[in-house]
């Protein structure tokens, strides 16, 4: 190949690349009424409902292409802090050291309710095995090693338990689901609290790791005798056995959309590092319930992006709540949703506050209660 031809080709390609860049960057700022492209990253737990929301929202605002990468709650907070994404998503509320690392004031918006379930795949065991915090803590520490252990038998009189060895599965990535589950275990077992603790990623005493909710579900379904923790929606669609968890009042609650939404009343604003809806005292509320948060910066600088983001969150807190049950999530209680909308109202772009576009407010009555 002649050197001059190589040079000519190189120049042509560079020119083409430059032209492409120029054209596409122009189009990305021209948003207007149709919305613009956004990038978000974070929690895997709400990923299915978020993807559905992004799809539905694009019908309302065709230009709003929201690219969400479910890399885990830890990643969501990390990328949000580094400002490499337009919004973050986390299943755990921001902790104080994470807050102090942020470059500016932030807004934390709960979007949907869900639960963490203990899921298992044991030949001979149907769904509905009764477990409490202490027993779960021992299982996940590896102290209870077979399914017919007396501790499990005590909680399940009359159930025939196989002697299959227990294989624990946990998350290998940082995740809010882990945070919720370990927070609950810490609240139920002093032993767990001191030996392991609660965080988005912990030093698991035993078990194999799965990547994401999906990885854990896959790992549990591959091995007989496995047990792990999953978000409710993943557990339901994966057809694994789901445990009934003992509530504060001694009754055993089966996770369901209703029992999870009963726990939602406990959510208070403003969201603090300790905010949680675990161990709800409401009758019939599922003990390991949780919410998930979107993270935004209060002071935005890009008009088009801020408008699209504002519109999307408004839409999600109103119209969007109507579709969550189809995917096995629970909607926010209506008073919580309106408090969330108030929190969203603090968002400004270049000093100006935002109002929702007509496409979002006009004609959509938004069923938001649960």
């Amino acid at each position, binding site marked *: 190949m002649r050197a001059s031809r190589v040079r000519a080709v190189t120049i042509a*390609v560079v020119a083409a690349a430059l032209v492409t860049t120029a054209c596409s960057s122009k189009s990305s700022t021209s948003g207007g009424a149709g919305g613009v492209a956004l*990038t978000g990253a974070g929690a895997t737990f709400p990923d299915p409902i978020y993807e*559905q929301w992004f799809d539905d929202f694009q019908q309302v605002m065709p230009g709003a292409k929201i690219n969400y990468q479910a890399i885990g709650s830890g990643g969501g907070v990390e990328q949000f802090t580094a400002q490499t994404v337009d919004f973050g998503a986390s299943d755990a509320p921001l902790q104080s050291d994470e807050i102090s690392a942020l470059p500016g004031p932030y807004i934390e918006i709960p979007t949907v309710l869900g639960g963490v379930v203990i899921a298992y795949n044991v030949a001979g065991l149907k769904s509905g095995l009764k477990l409490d915090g202490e027993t779960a803590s021992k299982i996940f520490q590896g102290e209870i090693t077979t399914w017919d252990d007396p501790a499990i038998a005590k909680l399940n009189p009359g159930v025939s338990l196989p002697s299959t060895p227990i294989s624990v599965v946990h998350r290998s990535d940082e995740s809010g689901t882990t945070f919720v589950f370990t927070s609950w275990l810490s609240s139920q077992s002093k032993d767990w609290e001191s030996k392991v603790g609660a965080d988005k990623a912990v030093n698991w005493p035993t078990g194999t790791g799965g990547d994401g909710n999906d990885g854990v579900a896959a790992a549990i379904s591959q091995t007989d005798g496995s047990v792990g923790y999953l978000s409710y929606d993943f557990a339901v669609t994966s057809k694994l056995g789901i445990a009934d968890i003992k509530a504060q009042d001694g009754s055993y609650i089966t996770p369901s959309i209703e029992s999870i939404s009963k726990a939602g009343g406990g959510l208070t604003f403003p969201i603090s590092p300790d905010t949680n809806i675990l161990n709800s005292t409401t009758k019939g509320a599922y003990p390991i319930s949780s919410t998930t948060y979107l993270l935004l910066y209060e002071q935005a600088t890009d008009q088009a992006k801020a408008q699209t983001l504002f519109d999307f969150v408004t839409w999600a807190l109103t119209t969007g709540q109507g579709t969550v049950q189809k995917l096995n999530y629970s909607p926010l209680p209506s008073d919580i949703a309106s408090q969330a909308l108030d929190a969203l109202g603090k968002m400004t772009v270049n000093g100006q506050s935002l109002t929702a576009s007509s496409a979002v407010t006009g004609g959509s009555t938004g069923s938001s209660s649960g």
Partner: protein
Amino acid sequence: MSAAGILQPVRGSRRIKDLAYRGALWCCVAIAMATLGVIAFYVVKRGISALSVNFFTKEPASQLHPEQGGIVQSFIGTGIIVGIASLIAIPLGLLTAVYLAEYGKGRLASAIRLTAQVLLSVPSIVAGAFIWTVVVVAFGNFSAFAGGLALVVLMWPIVARATEEVLLLVPQDLREGSLALGLPRWKTIMRVVVPAAGAGILTAVMLAVARALGETAPILLTALGNDFINTDPLKPTDAVPLRIFSDARTPVPGLHQIAWGGALVLLLAVLLLSIGARVLSVRQQKRLA
């Protein structure tokens, strides 16, 4: 082994050992061919059912009906990322090779070669981590550009080493003749030697591109991925290996199938380039011999 011993007809334990040796060699061949066969078989079998018009032209559909969508944004993204990487790495690699082959005889050249060897053997995830700290954080953005730069870290040494080889094969008389005719050194190199090595350089480039096409780890940390087509090199972009990786880890069988489809296309592209490179290099060697 005494002379008398060797000159006897081959019998007994010597024969058995020899037969065992030959058998072992054939076993190795069989294992290698069988392994390749099994891999190729599964990739084709599982991948081909994913290939459809949708696969090549649409963006991903909802997780409930993955077959209605495709991964067009991954193909475009790979093209952009590898394109950027090539634009940067090929000239750099070529000029490095020129230095090594034409000018460098001493310790500096040796150090450059060693550096190339190290960069080639460092796991590509390290390049990804490096570019993340330097580019992604600085720009505040995951981007195709960052992905491209991470690939440059790998492609540059490949182009440099492979091109150096080819340049060294160009007969010295060509250089001497050109210089004798009065051409300055740099023109000799760029107008005579490089074109003479033309096909070989193309080979080196094809090998580097083939390698870059299949890289996942560096892009994992720098380009983030995208469910939509993105042509802006400064924004998050998808890539075929990245899409395969994330689809494979979901519990949705439809997405697994898409992953296999992506793997099949990727494998074909990489093989075409690699085999093409080999064919070209054989022809080049014949030409210069």
